[in-house]
């Protein structure tokens, strides 16, 4: 037992270092006074002050959160209904693969396909088309996660509930959803994260007036790696860290109720 753990422990530690090395660079460089990341000009909070007035970054950040939230809600609803349905009909391989395929279709293929489809149905590009596009692949992830768990739920409990007179809706909310909760949470977190970070599909399906944060960052590359990008990265990291702690606290409180 000990020998095995030691080797894998060493690799695990290396992996953590590997994952956080760039993060450390990002955080460290956010304090760089120089506007060129490769030249250190001293420690300062200058860029933290200027970023709030950087309108493109701030407004695109809000938009990106908006898109991510809506995408998550839609994907959860659509993905869960598909999963419940597939489970009830004891769906075979084709439907399962069909519902989870968008998760692994290369983003470029999906992006260009959606662009031409929107054009064909004369739907003008905007945040709406981005939300639709993001929902497509996030739904697939939700289905993958929920389907995995739903098969393990004992159908007898649901049957008992309906036998005892509960309506379908009540059964859904009181029995099915609570049992699926871990998958729903995982699916929600996955959708939100994927949507926030997503660049390629947004790039092709977004309207010209409403760029998302990844698109703004990409268009900033012409000036190389600016400190504002690093400040952004640091802030995002801090926000998500706080978010995780909060979620944990809320979870504890919820458990104890």
């Amino acid at each position, binding site marked *: 037992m000990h020998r095995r753990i030691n080797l894998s422990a060493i690799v695990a530690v290396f992996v953590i270092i590997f994952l956080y090395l760039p993060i450390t660079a990002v955080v460290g460089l956010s304090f760089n006074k120089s506007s060129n990341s490769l030249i250190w000009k001293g420690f300062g909070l200058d860029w933290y002050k200027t970023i709030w007035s950087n309108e493109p970054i701030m407004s695109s950040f809000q938009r990106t959160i908006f898109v991510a939230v809506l995408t998550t809600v839609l994907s959860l609803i659509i993905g869960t209904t598909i999963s419940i349905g597939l489970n009830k009909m004891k769906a075979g391989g084709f439907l399962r693969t069909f519902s989870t395929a968008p998760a692994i279709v290369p983003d470029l293929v999906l992006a260009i396909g959606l662009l031409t489809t929107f054009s064909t149905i004369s739907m003008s590009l905007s945040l709406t088309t981005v939300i639709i596009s993001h929902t497509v692949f996030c739904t697939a992830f939700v289905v993958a996660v929920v389907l995995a768990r739903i098969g393990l739920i004992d159908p007898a409990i649901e049957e008992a509930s309906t036998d005892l007179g509960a309506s379908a809706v009540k059964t859904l909310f009181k029995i099915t959803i609570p049992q699926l909760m871990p998958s729903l949470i995982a699916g929600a977190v996955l959708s939100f994260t994927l949507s926030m970070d997503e660049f390629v599909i947004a790039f092709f399906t977004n309207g010209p*007036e409403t760029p998302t944060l990844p698109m703004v960052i990409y268009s900033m590359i012409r000036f190389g790696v600016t400190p504002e990008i690093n400040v952004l990265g640091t802030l995002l990291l801090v926000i998500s860290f706080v978010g995780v702690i909060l979620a944990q606290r809320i979870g504890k409180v919820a458990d104890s109720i």
Partner: protein
Amino acid sequence: MATVRNFKFSAAVVAAAALLLSACGGSSDSASSAAVDPDVDITTQKLVISNWAGYYPEDLAAKVKEAIGVDITITNHANNEEIMGKLTASDDSGIDIAFVSGQYAQALASGGKLFNFDKAAIPNLANLYPEVADLAYDQGNNYSAPYAWGTTGICYRSDLVDFTPDSWNDLLNPKDSIKGKTTMLATERWLALPAMKLLGYSMNTTNADEIAKAKAQLVKTKPTLLAYDDTAYYTKLISGEAVLSESWDGWCNYGTAENPAIKFVIPKEGSDLWADTMVILSSSKNKEAAHAFINYILQADVHAWVANNILYKVPNKAATETLDPALVTSYPNMGLTPAELLKGEVVLDLGTDSKLYTDLATAVTSS
């Protein structure tokens, strides 16, 4: 039973796809005319404009609003291909005015995507150098209004390079002291440019033999390069990662601004003449405001203000005459005269032959 249902389902999907596709493609072959309606109140119109990031003064939107009362939203594209992709992907991209390089304006026009200007609504076109109206990609400036122009050359760190570069050969077959520290432009037309000029060919050539010879030279060059870079090469020069780069002239000035040791030179074999232009999309519903915007930019003082800001030359005679001489001292390429620029070869759209250069670029960069 399930499998039959599944099969019918797939068949239906494919049929639907084919149906949808038949609706795609095909458009009229020439630019449409935009007669400006003088009775329209342009302050009720809004403009969506796509331009390169950093290629316009930061407070442009505010100044435009103040001067002509039109609200504008500026969106960015990182390169010509990106904006071309957006404009050609759908009939209405939502963009009213796009800033694109001359040869792309030519391509857009031949695909019927642009309005021909109602020149009566853009009197400031007269401010431009007469030579500019003659540029081959749009003779007469019928659908494109030049915003900035310049040439391509070599941008280098005079303090880190032990000789003065004067030839494309210095880039294509670099001395050992600078190997691994050079960059070339990634866009296929400009990727080919140095080789074409060194071999004495036109940069618009479609001759298979000439292209093959250029390809051979470029493939030879690749192992000596640090990277192909269209956008961040001046930061590489500033940090010293690179010491010699193929560069657009104005772009090099951004490097000089941070480090005066960065200098620009036009190689003796000659180079190109490119122009970045403003075009009005035929899908725009705000053509009156669009014309007013272009007219505003071409105003002498406004265009001079742009030049001061973006450190590129503007083809505006009235504006260039009011340029601050100190600017020219710091950035010598700002002082290039039209006569000198016109020695460069105008970049033209090659239509269906464009793929020759895309294939060239793919073959070179993947070698």
